[in-house]
């Protein structure tokens, strides 16, 4: 029996045992990872697993079960305990599967270019060699690179199968691979590490191991001899890798689950100005080869392209069927679920429309300010927008990057920060599902000495 047939069969069994509606997911995957440190293989991991999740609705009550036991007995328990558990949840008129007409597959999975044979064709030796080469390139880049946490190569394959009692059945598989290097730079008492990585759904899309290693080394070196600056208010530039985190906050604020609970500062703001007029944000679940692309979401609704913010105006939340019903809107095909529990909200490829400035132009525009290359900590409150995170970067003096800065925080309120982005780079970075270019925020608090 294929997994699609198995999922459909479990849906049928759940209905037979008393569920009004049911939804079943099967996830199967394999992963390989290798870490090479100082030229020697440190760790190799190579394995696969599979698991199954079942969600049932009885009246408007919902419950779910999950298991990695695919034996006849295991599947019996899966269905039986779902039916037993549903007695304990409440009637919720908003709880349901998507309507039959909302279900569907946006496009043939192959058109999204999610599955690539070149990843599967790589031998263990080739993977180890890429990790080794990336680390070696970092170690050889400069005599001040004295140590390393290693070079890493990871790859995997997974298949996602979904069936429900409103007639949906679909599956797709995808591959992924990534390569990274984490060198340590040292010079007269100062020790810093940084990293660089490349990630892609296909092996051909990876940056070369030499480039990954060299860039990692450059990044670690420029952090040496960092100092803490005096507390001040200045323009702050986010390089693309960290600008993606600001996009992540827009995504969280636009997520229907947070909005209907008023746990987001975007609640009640549809049609209102929430960002500068230069800000347009799109969630594109159908970008070929995109890390966040899927033919359908985790409720079986076709993935799509949704404009979230257009010229600074909030146009749409990102919704699954539940939050859509709560808000009196239509699902946007952003349901995301693991094996257990109710579907949440997930991004497709969540992208800021790029501007036309080069990163150099943006840096040149700042007389005194901070160029941020890494952020740490979790000081972000989506209810209020309060923002305060640890930052590492380079100080800008008269339009030029100068010395390294660390042990400072950058702070502000996201509601204001989104309105104060006054320069947008052309250099979109696709290393994450949150896709951003270099961004400049006119003024933030930098707390230091």
């Amino acid at each position: 029996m294929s997994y699609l047939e198995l999922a459909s069969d479990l849906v049928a069994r759940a209905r037979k045992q008393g569920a009004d509606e049911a939804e079943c997911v099967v996830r199967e995957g394999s992963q390989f990872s290798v870490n090479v440190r100082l030229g020697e293989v440190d760790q190799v991991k190579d394995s696969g697993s599979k698991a199954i999740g079942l969600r049932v609705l009885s009246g408007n009550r919902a419950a779910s079960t999950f298991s990695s036991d695919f034996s006849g007995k295991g599947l019996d328990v899966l269905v039986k305990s779902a039916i037993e558990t549903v007695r304990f949840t409440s009637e919720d008129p908003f709880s349901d599967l998507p309507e039959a007409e909302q279900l569907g597959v946006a496009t043939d999975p192959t058109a999204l270019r999610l599955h690539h044979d070149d990843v599967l064709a790589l031998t263990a030796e080739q993977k180890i060699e890429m990790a080794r080469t990336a680390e070696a390139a970092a170690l050889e880049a400069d005599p001040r690179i004295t140590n390393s946490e290693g070079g890493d190569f990871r790859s995997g394959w997974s298949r996602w199968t979904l069936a429900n009692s409103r007639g949906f059945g679909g599956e797709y598989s995808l591959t992924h691979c990534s390569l990274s290097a984490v060198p340590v730079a040292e010079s007269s008492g100062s020790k810093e590490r940084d990293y660089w990585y490349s990630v892609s759904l296909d092996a051909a899309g990876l940056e070369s191991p030499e480039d990954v290693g060299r860039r990692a080394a450059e990044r670690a070196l420029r952090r040496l001899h960092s100092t803490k600056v005096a507390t001040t208010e200045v323009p702050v530039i986010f390089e693309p890798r960290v600008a993606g985190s600001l996009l992540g906050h827009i995504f969280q604020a636009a997520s229907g689950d947070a909005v209907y609970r008023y746990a987001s500062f975007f609640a009640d703001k549809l049609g209102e100005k929430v960002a500068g007029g230069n800000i347009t944000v799109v969630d594109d679940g159908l970008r070929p080869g995109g890390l966040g692309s899927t033919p359908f979401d985790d409720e079986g609704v076709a993935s799509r392209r949704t404009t979230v913010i257009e010229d600074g105006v909030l146009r749409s939340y990102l919704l699954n069927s539940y939050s859509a019903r709560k808000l009196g809107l239509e699902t946007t095909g952003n349901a995301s679920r693991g094996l257990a529990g109710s579907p949440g909200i997930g991004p497709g490829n969540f992208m800021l429309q790029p501007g036309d400035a080069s990163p150099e132009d943006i840096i040149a525009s700042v007389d005194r300010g901070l160029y941020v290359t890494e952020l740490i900590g979790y000081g972000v409150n989506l209810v209020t927008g309060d923002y305060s995170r640890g930052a590492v970067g380079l100080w800008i003096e008269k339009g030029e990057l100068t010395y390294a800065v660390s042990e400072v925080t950058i702070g502000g309120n996201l509601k204001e920060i989104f309105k104060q982005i006054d320069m947008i780079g052309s250099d979109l970075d696709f290393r994450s599902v949150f896709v951003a270019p270099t961004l400049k925020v006119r003024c933030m608090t930098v707390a230091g000495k």
Partner: protein
Amino acid sequence: MSFIQTRYNLTEADLEKYLGEALSKGGDYADLYFEYLSTTSASLDESIIKSASQGVSVGCGVRVISGEKTGYAYTNDLAPEKLIHAARTAAQIAAGPTTAKVAGLEEPQGSQNLYPVVVGPSDVEFSRKVALLRTADEAARAYDERVFQVEASYRDSVRHVLIANSESVIRSDTQPLTRMDVSVIAREGERIERGHDGTGGRVGLDYFQTERTPRDLSHEAARQAVLQIGAEEAPAGEMPVVLGPGWPGILLHEAVGHGLEADFNRKQVSAFSGLIGRKVASELCTVIDDGHIPSRRGSLNVDDEGATTGRAVLIENGILKGYLQDRLSSRILGTPPTGNGRRQSYKHIPMPRMTNTFMLAGEDDPQDILRSVDRGLYCVNFGGGQVDITSGKFVFSASESYLIEGGQVTRPVRGATLIGNGPDVLTKVSRVGHDLKLDRGIGTCGKEGQSVPVGVGIPTIKVDQLTVGGTNVLRAASTFQD
């Protein structure tokens, strides 16, 4: 016979056979980690039980160590041919004759039982669990009329483990883990704020009747949300900071705990590398990691490599004493294991990790400590934190803090991140209170993609100077510089 051996009909001869396969290509050491994890959870939102879930995850991880190299494979199908395949995959790491021999598995004497849960939480009727959530909802709504959203969640798990290794050791354990969380949103006019509280440990459901009740959690979460409505902008810049007792111990976890994990130190990538025997804190500071405190969230009878957990002194009177070890690091560094080898699940390779990390109590009266500060910040609750191991820079985010003015705690301020440097922040500790408290049992530590439950604790302490990442620069400049 352990739960897993009985359920999957695994004899010791079977385990020896799999270990033999793991060492078939050579290698110094092999181990098997079997895990059977059953979980239940339920959540309440908008005064109704919106979801409930149950599930089981089963699998086995096989590890082979050859010199400093680790090979790892896992399977979630425990059929003999799958286990042999996993063992042979892990074996690929090694080449050459094996130095290890597998014979006669034995359970070591003197096992401890830190969490005797009479009724396993998963055996208790679901209705008792959802009743806790309903109580929490009612209590939060009754607390204050400004409370308008309440989310409550309950989660428990029982993890059965079986560990067998090529040094003839076989260990098993049953590890309960339970937690409950309440999150409240309060509103007054345009101002909307959130508060949160949670509690748990390796405990049964009775804990929520006798130790901390849903009502306690709800009142605390609602109190914080309402308090934040009146909070002002936090100051920005360096100032004296007083940390309250309990959860603010996250300072120790981020500032020193991670940097003392032996893997980073054997690789010489930690800011603490090479500092054993050196002064890294004021002499008032003694920092301990203790995995065998009864019923605590971070405690374990045996670690995830089968070693008995214990008490490791990390810093004694300001002097760095030792690292947190797993098996591989302790062998390479030639120091005794400390029972800190942990992993998230059978899919993960063990690493040195913290258990319950805390600072011993000092002698000062907490009120005296506050009175000693002319202008500063008093932080009593925190969200998460993070550290850069190599540079030593760490952050942790205050969620409830107050200004100290003229030795008095005055006004509440909004959330802000505190940032410092691990190897020197504790040298600035000038007062340590006599009020050591452990946290409420909801800490989870992430490292290299693996999450494990941990605990922290601290008495009231004063750090003479720490950077506070608020937004109020003016206040910092005019009144907050000593």
